[in-house]
């Protein structure tokens, strides 16, 4: 059996945290930052050219989230999804400023622009949401999904690798995929 992080946060833990955050509990702010700061920062780092800009954007996301917490509705989506929505706006703001600055600089220096990462912010949000959801799958399920999705094993090979019956393996794959799909349906932003 694989060894997995015993402190894997459950869906129930995340919901309780989201509710505490919404009621203005400052301890919940810190916990929310500890829980999803990496997620938000990953989005900002991958979306912005400079590390300094990414750090500024990440900070701005949590500041804006805290100040605007009355706008968060736990019934409409996860706190992680909401935070990433705020992150998109923060990145767009900083990016627009950077673009104007760069355009000005280029006009002055007539320098050719460098190609930036072309994957859209929407796709990046979705990928990060899926990564977050994967981390919450039950360990056996997560392992089965990992083997089938990423290592390219057929379900028979997954079953053999994990020493599980075929039926159990297919169930793990089906349910794992359903969880990821539901996360994208609730919080995802990229068009199909």
């Amino acid at each position, binding site marked *: 059996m694989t060894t997995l992080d015993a402190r894997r946060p459950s869906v129930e833990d995340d919901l309780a945290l989201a509710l505490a955050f919404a009621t203005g509990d400052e301890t919940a702010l810190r916990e929310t930052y500890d829980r999803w700061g990496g997620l938000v920062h990953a989005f900002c780092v991958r979306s912005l050219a400079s590390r300094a800009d990414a750090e500024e954007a990440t900070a701005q996301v949590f500041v804006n989230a805290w100040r605007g917490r009355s706008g968060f509705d736990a019934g409409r989506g996860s706190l992680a999804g909401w935070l990433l929505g705020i992150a998109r706006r923060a990145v767009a703001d900083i990016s627009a400023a950077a673009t104007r600055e760069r355009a000005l600089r280029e006009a002055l220096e007539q320098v050719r622009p460098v190609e930036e990462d072309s994957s859209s912010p929407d796709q990046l949000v979705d990928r990060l949401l899926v990564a977050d959801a994967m981390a919450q799958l039950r360990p056996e399920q997560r392992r089965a999904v990992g083997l089938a999705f990423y290592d390219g094993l057929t379900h028979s090979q997954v079953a053999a690798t994990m020493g599980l019956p075929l039926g159990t393996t*297919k169930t793990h794959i089906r349910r794992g995929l359903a969880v990821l799909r539901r996360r994208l349906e609730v919080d995802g932003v990229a068009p199909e």
Partner: protein
Amino acid sequence: MSHPSEDDLALLALGEPVDDVDAHVRSCAACERELLALASTVDTARRAELTDLPPPPPAVWQRIADELGLHEPAPASRPRRTPWRRPLLVGGAALLAAAAAAVSLLVLPLGGGPSPATSARPSAPLTALGQAAATGRVVLADGAERSLVVDTSGLPEADGFYEVWLLDLDQGRMVALGALDDAGHGRLTVPDGVRLGDYPEVDVSLEPDDGDPAHSGDSVLRGRLPA
């Protein structure tokens, strides 16, 4: 021909061949839709990075704490015991808008969650002065009683800021504790050397941004400290 099982659709979405199902899926709009939705999820998942996302550098939290004023105030600053400069006006420049729901500071009990259950802490209401429609609550937030949480609702946006004070009306003394944030909320430290028992009342005032540390005289909320 019956629809393929969900198990089989999941395998198809992963690109695994499943016997006898292809023909049906090609001709069934519902199954094709389902398959496309699952395949799209698989595609997104496969592009996702699964490595643990490292936390941001410590400086990032520092910026957040600075911006939101989450720090404890520096212990070196002395408490401002301002003499009575002007009488505390009741109802002051009453700017208060339509009533908002009273805010209860009872944090939802979290099963096994690490957050402190503020509902167990001594708390007391803050009532509006004059024609106000705002409400508030003050909670003694830790066992040593050096920390107060003030939460309000219905305070209107105004030029300036809202400040929290401890009052001793009998002796005409007061201590400034700090400002509320943009959401009308504050977690404030009682300065060393101030005994809560000496100051039975809590006051929230609207202060202009004029650099004058004295109480403006414009109190908007008042209450007694919880026992």
